[in-house]
Each structure stands twice: as C-alpha cells, then as structure tokens.
C-alpha cells in the first residue's frame, strides 16, 4: 500500500500544484499549459528516451485535431467520441508512416518529419480545401454537445478533464519507464548494436515508441480541437514546427516532469516577455543556445539532482534523530 503510494506521490504532487495553478493564473493560460504539455511529452519521450529528434510533431497534432474536427463538424456532437476519433486517426497515421520513418538516422528523421508536417499543412490548406475549408478552418464550437458528467464544452470543466487526462498520460509514461520496454528504448538510444546483440529488435522498439509518442501527440491535437472549437491549417504551419522541441529542451529532454515545467516556463515567458519587449524570439533563442551550451539538461534536469540531494539529506537526518 505504502509502496503504491510512493509510486504515485510525485505525480500527485505535480498535478496538485498544476490544479493549484488554476487559482492563480487565468483559465486560458492554464488550459493552454495542460494541452501543450501533453503535446510536448510525446516529443520529449522521442528525444530523451529513444534519441529521435522530430521537427514534425505539428503533423501528428494536426492529424489528431482534424480527426476530432471532422467528426464534430460533419458527423456527431459528442466531444468524447470526437477525441477518440482523433486519437484513432493519430494512431493509424503513426502506424502507417512509422515503419518507413524509424529506419532513418536521427538527423534524417527530423527532416522527413518536417517534410510530413509541410505536406499535411498543404493538404489541409489547399488540396483538401473542399472538406477542410482551407485557411478559414472548420468551426464547430456550437456543434459540441454538453455532456452530463463533465461538460467539456465549458472551459472551466474542460480544465478538470484535461488535467485528469494529463495525469493518466503522465502515469502511463512513468509506468513505461519502469517496464522492460522503457529500458529497451533507452538502450536503443545509447547503443543500438548492444540491444541487437541482446536479442531485441531495434526496429520494433523504435516503431512502438514512435506510435505511442505520436498517438499522445494526436490526443493533444484532439484536446485543442475540442477546447478551441475550431481547427485550421495554421496548427501545422512549418514556422511552429520547432516549438515542442524547444519546450522539451527547456524542460529537460527525457525527464518525466520536463515537459510540464518546460511548458509552464515557455508559455509564461511568451506571455510576459511579449508584453514587456514584444520580442520574445530573441530571448527564447538565446536561452536555447545557453541551455545547450550549459549541458543540455534543461530546467528539470538541473533541479532534479539538487532536489534528490535535499530529500536524501533529510532522510539521513531523520534517521540520526
């Protein structure tokens, strides 16, 4: 019982703080943070655990968002079903392109993903304009039906739902870290030859990781669609392709809470700095260079050892007493 609690403790503290944040900051900000952090954790998992850097995350985000959007615009009204459709769309897309992409080396992988993002962008903006309404986007806010238990068409209840979803996503990724699969992911990043030698298939491990990460990304896309009530090609614009990578690095790639902390820091900085000097790229850019040169550990990667030291010292102290 106590062991189980210990496993959940970190998660409960983190999301307790997140829920508390709701009181302090405006609601749109809190919602943005929750969705964006789900968006980022897929990228963080790929970069920090599997060693794949992807500049194409917006593609999967848009696939999830458009999956949800199509359902809510053309077929149904239930947002939960819409979310499931979005997740399914993301899963199918990742499962189709995955086998082709994960064969490539990390640098090519990043660029092929970027290419996919551009293709999805022009598909949605021009080629499929009859269905997607091009640049105008699909507007379906009024189509979303109120649901009896958690009415996620209202922003405040949406926050509760999104936080719950994020909590379980995080629990899932924490669980992954403990499994054999999690160890294999780390191994394929560090030394693929040795993993092969141990009898595991690099290809299968990478493919599974790729599908998991991008299904999560599609989930974030679906949440965006339900929350904003519209989808537009702007979501997958190549100019925003690096956002999740920046947030991942900022928070600390591969750390469990990195995406959460990184998102809060990034969204917060964007808000505050753009009000102060109207020129936040300058700041973010040089911060990124600084973090990389300082040892690419990010915020969480820097704080974590320090926190652990404090905890262990306190434990040692209580033992003496």
């Amino acid at each position, binding site marked *: 019982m106590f062991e189980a609690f210990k496993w959940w403790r970190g998660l409960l503290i983190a999301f307790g703080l997140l829920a508390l944040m709701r009181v302090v900051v405006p609601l749109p900000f809190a919602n943005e943070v929750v969705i964006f952090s789900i968006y980022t954790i897929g990228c963080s998992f790929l*970069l920090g655990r599997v*060693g794949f*850097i992807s500049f194409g995350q917006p593609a999967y985000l848009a696939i999830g968002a458009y999956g949800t959007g199509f359902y809510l615009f053309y077929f149904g009204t239930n947002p939960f079903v819409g979310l499931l459709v979005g997740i399914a769309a993301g899963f199918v897309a990742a499962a189709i392109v995955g086998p*082709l992409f994960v*064969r*490539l*080396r*990390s*640098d*090519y992988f*990043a*660029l*092929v993903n*970027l*290419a*996919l993002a*551009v*293709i999805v962008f*022009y*598909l949605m*903006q*021009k*080629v499929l304009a009859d269905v997607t309404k091009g640049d105008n986007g699909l507007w379906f806010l009024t189509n979303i039906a109120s649901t009896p238990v958690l009415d996620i068409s209202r922003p405040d209840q949406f926050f509760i739902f999104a936080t719950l979803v994020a909590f379980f996503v995080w629990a899932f990724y924490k669980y992954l870290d403990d499994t054999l699969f999690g160890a294999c992911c780390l191994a394929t990043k560090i030394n693929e030859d040795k993993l092969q030698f141990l009898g595991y298939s690099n290809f299968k491990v990478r493919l599974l990781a790729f599908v998991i990460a991008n299904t999560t990304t599609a989930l974030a896309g679906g949440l965006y669609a339900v929350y904003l009530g519209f989808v537009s090609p702007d979501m997958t614009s*190549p*100019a925003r392709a*690096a956002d999740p*990578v*920046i947030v991942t*690095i900022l928070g600390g790639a591969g750390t469990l809470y990195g995406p959460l902390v990184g998102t809060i820091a990034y969204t917060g900085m964007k808000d505050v700095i753009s009000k102060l000097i109207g*020129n*936040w*790229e*300058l*700041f*973010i*850019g*040089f*911060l*990124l*260079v600084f973090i*990389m*040169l300082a040892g*690419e550990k990010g915020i969480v990667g820097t704080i974590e050892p320090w926190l652990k030291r404090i905890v262990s010292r306190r434990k040692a102290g209580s033992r003496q007493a």
Partner: protein
Amino acid sequence: MDAQLLLSGIIFGLSIGSIFFLMAIGLSLCFGLMRVISLDQLLYYSIGGYLTYTVSVGTGSVWLGVLAGLVVAGITAFAVERFVFRRIYDRDVAFSMITTFGILIGGVGVIKAIWGLVPRPVAMPAGDQVDILGTFVPGYRLIVIVVAILVYVAIWLFLNRTIVGKAIRAGIEDVDHVEGLGINVYRLFTITFIIAGTLSGLAGGLHAPLIMVDPSMGLEVIALVFMVVIIGGLGSIKGTAVSALLVGQVMSLGSLIYAPLAQMAPFAIMLLILLIKPTGLYGSPLLKR
C-alpha cells in the same frame, strides 16, 4: 501548355534553384566536414537580404548592397563559429541542430528589433526584359543564374586546385587522418564556415529583389533548403547542385500545372528519394559516422 510559358517557367525554376543552391552549399559543406547541421545559415541569408535592402535604399545600388550583405554575413558567421561552434563540434548532430535553431530564432529576434516587422521591398536592378527565342524573361533572373554558375565553378576550383580545398575534401572523407597529417582542422572548420556563411549571405542578397525581405524570410525557406541538401545527399557539392536544379524545376513547372503543387511536390519527392535511398542522391555511406 505553350512554349513561351514553358520557357519562362524553366528560367524561373533555374533562378529559384540557383538561390537554393547558394544556400544549400554551405549547409552541405558544414555537414560534410564538421558533421554539424547549421540551421543558422538561414540567419546569414536574412542578414544578406536586409543589408541589401538598407544599402540599396541608402546608396541606390543593389549590387553594393549584395556585397555589403555577404561581407557582414561572413563576419557574423565567423563570430558564431568562434563563440558557439567551437564548443559543439564533438557533440552529436541533433545537438548542433537544436543549438543552431536557437541561434536562428535569436537572430530573427535581433532583426525584428533593428528593422521592425514590416516587410520591405527591394528595387529590382537590371529590370530590363531579355528576349530569348521570342520569350521575354526578366534579365535579373538570368544574372542570378550566371552568379550561381560562377560560384559553382569557383567552389569546384577551390576544392580541387588549392591546397586548402584539398584538405577540406580530405577532411570530408576522414577528419582524423587530416589532423594526423599535422593540419590544423579547426582552422579548416573556420574557413569552411565563413565560406558557407558568405554564400548564404549572397543568396539572401540576390533573393531580396525577387521577394520582399521580412523577418521570417529565413524560416520560410528553411524546409525547402533542407530538402535540397537532403535530396542531394549531405556533404556532396555535385548532389546539392543537381537537387537544387531539380527542386527549382519541380516547384516552377509544378505550379504551372496545379498551383498548390509548388509547395508540396518537392517534399513528396524528398520522401520518395529518402525511402528508396536513405542517404540522398549522391550521399555516400562513407559519411556515416
């Protein structure tokens, strides 16, 4: 479609391809020799464009502006190499990609602070139309093509006929052996990086009259330039030239057939080529490290 449209389409494609070639050659050399992916080349491209704008407004001569652009781009490249790249040469490729992306958006922020957000037009020099086989094409585009050809020849002579160029080529094959011969490879790196930055600046300066310079001009071409390098194969000059021509033509002729193709077709081609030959057209497995 009629022959005149086709001919002007081909000239258009060649001039676009020339710009891409000038930019991509720097990226390609940097990857080949130093094994870094230098996204900040796009920053030097923007710097080239903006200086062309400023100087051409000040003095009335676009060519002077292009010259100023490439000199300043080269100097900036030198500074960045000194302060940032020196520290990241021995890290893996993804690392340099993220770091240089930081430099790129930081630099875009600086550009926004200096020149503001509004796109600026640059006057077209040599605005006369030239008559080729009964089709009138803008003379400036022909000049761009000629400049790209001259640069290709100059780079080829530099790499094949001078001792520094030969050392760079040897470095692309095996940098450790070059170092073992007593050549200071870090000096080679600096030289290569300055060449790359200067060429990107030149590309920006030449491209400026054809488009409007705006702060995100680098981000707009980033995907296309990358694609040129990838299709050609990282580290191969010939491959870069061939794929720049290919991409330019696909964009220009594709848009004659169906407008959205201009942006999408090159990416589809890149996906196809990478899936068939993961190292690009001319990339050799030697480059794997």
